[in-house]
């Protein structure tokens, strides 16, 4: 209990130490919106250069002809007062014409909305256009906001206000509806990581604070591969189909702590025995503390002590090295072909969960911006034969001598990777779960808008994969 109290106290003590004193308003931001963002309020007033008292801008009210029920002026943010110092401001009126009366009032408002007028001033035709320098001693303590209001009736004279200086400590919370800063015993910071319990996804763990999912917290993404690279295939894009979801967890400094990659191998529509890996293009191998859960059944991939593939500059994460070794054969007629023939037995997708722990020290820290997923297929147990998404770089282990052979038109110099001379791909990545194609059914036969999407350079039907009327031909899709 004492610990919780101490943490809560420290949290608010830190905030209080940082808080600015005095609080000022000179309107030189030129737009009331800028000051409203830190909880000043401007009922009936704008920042205006007309009749400015000092600098370029002052706060200028409306015509003040509405009477006492519609006063115009400025309201300060919530502030904490300690009975010392003063409140200073400058004010005047514009031209006195047809005025019945004009008054100014300085009112303090408590959080329970009770008010107390602490200063009044009556303008007259003789003093209206002179600058009045307000200066009163603060003789109260506690949390209040101050209203600097003009009221009046008759005529169109406006009030001008500027150079407000209040000896008190700023005590508003702009991201909490500008309410007063207030410690909430229910929302302490049990783990002391600086993130209050009610905002901390892991309030008892000082190493974790938030989590985020890719592609999204609901649903999975879908990877679909052809595996005959560098030769073109039949574009059923089902030689390997996997769904993925990656959960990232961060600490209170927004530094990545770990990732859980959940990959579901859904289909193998190929005679080859293929593997699946991810390269994190911006994260070096030595930024990884550990990788566990990779399904390694052969010897084509060698893991370093921290679990990434050895000999790679960037972190390469093995999901599985042979899909056929982890997923039972579901086709009685063809070996190594599973879940692509509608009349063959359905095999429940095989889920692989790979856990990655990132180093979090300053020299190795990984941020969300550093994430660039580069999934790729290892074809037929040949480590050098990598098949990536179009435009994605090969890993250090890729056999570059294959580039440019057969149908491949990879040119490292122009950063064209894994596309044919007609710029066709060997793999695609969909941001949601979609049904894949049955065996030897080209993707265009299942997704009616796919070709228009490609031919229009993505300008038309960028939602081609959604289940909209006329978008899918379910007869060619593998749907369970």
């Amino acid at each position, binding site marked *: 209990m004492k610990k919780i109290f101490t943490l809560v106290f420290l949290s608010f003590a830190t905030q209080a130490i940082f808080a600015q004193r005095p609080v000022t308003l000179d309107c030189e931001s030129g737009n009331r919106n800028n000051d409203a963002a830190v909880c000043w309020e401007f009922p009936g007033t704008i920042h205006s250069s007309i009749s400015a008292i000092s600098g370029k801008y002052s706060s200028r009210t409306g015509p003040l002809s509405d009477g006492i029920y519609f006063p115009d002026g400025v309201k300060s943010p919530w502030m904490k007062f300690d009975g010392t110092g003063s409140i200073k401001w400058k004010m005047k009126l514009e031209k006195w014409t047809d005025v019945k009366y004009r008054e100014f009032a300085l009112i303090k408002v408590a959080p329970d909305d009770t008010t107390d007028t602490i200063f009044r001033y009556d303008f007259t035709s003789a003093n209206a256009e002179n600058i009045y320098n307000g200066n009163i001693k603060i003789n109260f303590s506690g949390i209040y906001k101050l209203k600097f209001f003009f009221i009046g009736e008759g005529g169109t004279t406006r009030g001008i206000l500027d150079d407000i200086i209040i000896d008190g400590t700023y005590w508003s*919370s702009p991201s909490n509806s500008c309410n007063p800063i207030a410690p909430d015993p229910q929302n302490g910071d049990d783990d002391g990581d600086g993130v209050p319990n009610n905002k901390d996804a892991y309030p008892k763990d000082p190493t974790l604070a938030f989590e985020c999912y890719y592609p999204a917290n609901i649903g999975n993404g879908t990877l679909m591969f052809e595996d005959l690279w560098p030769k073109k295939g039949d574009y059923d894009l089902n030689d390997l189909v996997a769904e993925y979801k990656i959960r990232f967890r961060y600490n209170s400094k927004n530094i990545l702590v770990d990732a859980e990659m959940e990959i579901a191998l859904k289909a193998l529509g190929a005679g080859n025995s293929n593997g699946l890996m991810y390269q994190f293009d911006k994260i070096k191998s030595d930024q990884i503390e550990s990788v566990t859960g990779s399904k390694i059944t052969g010897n084509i991939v060698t893991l370093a002590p921290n679990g990434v593939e050895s000999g790679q500059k960037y972190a390469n994460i093995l999901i599985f090295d042979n899909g056929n070794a982890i997923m039972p054969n579901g086709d009685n007629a063809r070996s190594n072909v599973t879940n692509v023939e509608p009349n063959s037995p359905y095999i429940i997708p095989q889920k692989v969960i790979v856990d990655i722990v990132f180093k979090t020290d300053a020299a190795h820290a990984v941020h969300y911006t550093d994430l660039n997923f580069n999934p790729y297929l290892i074809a037929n147990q040949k480590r050098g034969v990598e098949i990536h998404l179009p435009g994605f770089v090969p890993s250090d282990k890729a056999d570059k001598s294959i580039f440019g052979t057969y149908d491949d038109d990879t040119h490292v110099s122009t950063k064209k990777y894994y596309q044919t001379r007609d710029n066709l791909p060997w793999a695609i990545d969909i941001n949601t779960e979609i049904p894949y194609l049955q065996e030897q059914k080209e993707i265009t036969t299942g997704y009616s808008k796919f070709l228009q999407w490609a031919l229009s350079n993505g300008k038309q039907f960028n939602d081609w994969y959604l289940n909209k009327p006329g978008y899918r031909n379910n007869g060619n899709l593998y749907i369970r």
Partner: protein
Amino acid sequence: MLILKRNFLLVSLAIISLFGCKKNDSAIKDQDPTSLNKIKVSSSFDWTTYQKVKFNVKGIPLLAAEKNILSVTSLDDKEVFLTGYYSMGENISEEFKIPKIVDQVKVTFGSISKTVLVVDQNIDFSYISDAPQGNN
């Protein structure tokens, strides 16, 4: 001589326009879209359903420490694209991927919540809003 040079230039431009880029464009445009195997797509087409966006936030001068959860979500809050604990006073620039079909996102920082358009793969968020009139 000058006229000769100008004519040569015009003829060259005409040849380039006939046999240069236009050839590729028309080849792509006039295709019969029946099979992926029979088409040629633009070299600039990226085949991805994602877009990499840059999330830009300009911090504002603060009068007290103000940290809160900043999140970028779909408009219905069902998909969270980014979340983290940030100070309102810091400039933020984060890159991440969202589906290409998303053209608006919701950005939330505590009680501040705005719908923001995705423009040219940028999400620009400001804490500054139209000031409410406030209660008298």
